[in-house]
């Protein structure tokens, strides 16, 4: 593997990322399954980096899941997105951050459509005006939330309390990155580093001391694929995709998987439990599975945030082995308490996937 070859590609795929004053578009899946991620993102931007970011309670889902399941029409989703642009415009912002990779793909697809078909844009403006009375400006800059963390990765590194280094061996942690199909496979030009050898997560990992693993099925879809999991009978396809990736990465003995996309984070995490129940198989040496983190969770650990405040206990694969490798301080007895210190009760334990107790 020649790093200079990758660098050559990364040079071709640089994108402009706004420096400040953002309107934040949240993710449906992340709010539900990894609620600590967006919380950490806002905390990092506001408290660590001092950025102005608008977290608006008035925006809705982008309807992307319905769109990709063919129950929401393109005209409908374009109008929903236009409403979000209108909210951004009304709040006085010009730069949009999108938390979800599916949404990011949809926004870029819609903007590309409007660029090539101005009549469609005109019609969407009419639809939005008719339905809501709102008008909108197209954002000057659109970035995925990971683009922002990538942009400020060195500032985060400068504040790091922990690094992505195994404190027992002094070696960099071996990390698998997975950017998600809709981040840059649709429009490579909109992704940091392009689609084939993306740099957005790798850049963070490198800046924070870790080492990326390049394994043969790195580009393969996690299996989220909307119809594969929305239709229960198809879920075997979804598991099979994730399994293919786990089998391919296993020889490299990864310490962690970091994901860009809400769906990928969910399935790379939860299917490890499913496979362990179906086949009794886990993908780390000690039977705990490979922890799957979002990039904000990874950034939060580096910055020394409480892992339970980051919501790592909400994951199927538990992260204590990773925390121990990094040397992160944590209180096991606070794992199942809410922010007010109330005991929430422990979840049922898996049959085969080990969990620290």
């Amino acid at each position, binding site marked *: *593997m*020649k790093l*200079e*070859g*990758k660098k*050559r*590609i990364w040079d071709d795929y640089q994108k402009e990322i706004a420096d400040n004053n953002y309107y934040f578009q949240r993710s449906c899946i992340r709010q539900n399954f990894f609620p600590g991620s967006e919380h950490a993102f806002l905390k990092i931007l506001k408290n660590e980096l001092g950025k102005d970011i608008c977290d608006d309670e008035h925006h809705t889902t982008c309807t992307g899941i319905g769109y990709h399941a063919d129950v929401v029409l393109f005209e409908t989703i374009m109008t929903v997105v236009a409403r979000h642009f209108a909210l951004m415009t009304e709040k006085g912002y010009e730069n949009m951050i999108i938390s979800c990779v599916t949404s990011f793909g949809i926004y870029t697809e819609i903007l590309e459509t409007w660029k090539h078909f101005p009549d469609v844009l005109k019609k969407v403006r009419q639809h939005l005006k008719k339905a809501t009375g709102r008008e909108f400006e197209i954002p000057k800059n659109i970035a995925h939330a990971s683009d922002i963390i990538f942009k400020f990765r060195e500032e985060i590194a400068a504040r790091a309390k922990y690094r992505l280094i195994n404190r027992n061996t002094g070696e960099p942690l071996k990390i698998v990155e997975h950017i998600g199909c809709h981040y840059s496979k649709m429009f490579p030009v909109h992704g940091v580093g*392009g*689609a*084939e*050898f993306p740099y957005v997560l790798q850049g963070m990992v490198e800046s924070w001391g870790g080492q990326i693993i*390049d*394994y*043969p*099925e*790195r*580009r393969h879809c996690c299996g989220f694929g909307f119809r594969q999991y929305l239709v229960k009978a198809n879920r075997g396809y979804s598991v099979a995709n994730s399994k293919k990736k786990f089998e391919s990465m296993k*020889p*490299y003995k990864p310490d962690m998987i970091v994901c860009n996309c809400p769906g990928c984070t969910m399935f790379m995490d939860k299917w490890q439990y499913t496979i362990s129940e179906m086949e009794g198989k886990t993908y780390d040496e000690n039977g705990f599975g490979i922890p799957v983190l979002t990039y904000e969770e990874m950034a939060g650990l580096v910055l020394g945030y409480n892992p339970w405040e980051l919501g790592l206990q909400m994951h199927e694969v538990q992260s204590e082995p990773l925390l121990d490798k990094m040397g992160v301080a944590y209180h096991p007895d606070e794992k199942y308490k809410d922010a007010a210190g109330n005991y929430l009760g422990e979840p049922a334990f898996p049959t085969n996937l080990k969990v620290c107790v």
Partner: protein
Amino acid sequence: MTKKVAIIGGGIAGMEAASVLSRMDIEVLLIEKRQQLGGHVGEWDHLFPNFRPASEITRSLLNALQNNNIKICANTVVTGIARKAGLFEVKTNQNQNFKVDGILLATGFDLFDAHKKEEYGYGIYENVITSADLEKKLKGGNVLTTASGCVPKRIAMIHCVGSRDEKAGYFHCSRVCCITAVKQAIEIRQKLPNVEIFCFYMDLRMYGKGFEEIYREAQEKWGIQFVRGRLSEAGENIDGGLQIKSEDTLSGRPLKMIVDMIVLMVGMVPAESTSQMAKMLGIHLSGDGFIAHDDVHFGSNITNVPGIFTAGTITSPMTISDTIADARSAALKICEYIA
């Protein structure tokens, strides 16, 4: 008074045209940007369809240039061409200034830059090479090895890299890659009888004399396997092996295999200098970026600018045989023009 022609490009087309024109008592300036004449053929080891050493071709052409009517300007780049009083004034980076009656453009082609097919990992995975790299490796009778010095056991040859590829921006067929893959696959098997070779193709275009015969020989005598399917991606294994994914479209099945080496059959694309030259001279390009002929049937070698002619792969991909024939035809056309 002796007529003069400037030939820009010292590949095989320029060399052949120079020797033909010189034998017609026309003075020729053969301008080549590199030190050596011979162009891409000079970089090749053996040629299809008869496995003849490429050096035989360049040597033969060089011998024919031993003529007092030919002046070779190596390491020379044309910086300007202007038309004055019925003549062309050619300026070079060597501060030369030539007045000639006609110009023959023979600047050839560039090899497709395989880095552009990012999913194949050229320049990133050590055991992904191009057909041109393979020729260099085979030159001088060297044994083919992987980056780690091992003898490969399984090799995939990928056809149409940068040809007939909308994503890469080139719709045209490069015409020589299919037969080059067959030739190279046989050469590898001759040197390494135990290696397995798989050629991944879209169509096999064996149109030339002797092509179909060696394609059959490749299968029947050398056991080379041809899989109708395009490569979707390559990835590197922990041991440096390459995992490739494709589809065998004849059996309708997805295919995944591990190989030790991938050879990308890179296509012929318009030379970078062609568009610069065309812009400078006001010459029309066709949609594929090569120089256009106004009449597809009768217009070969003729450009839209009177007095400026073409020879060889500056107008489209060609085999060596076709390039030589085209160069002879160009010499005839330019001779008619300046007579």
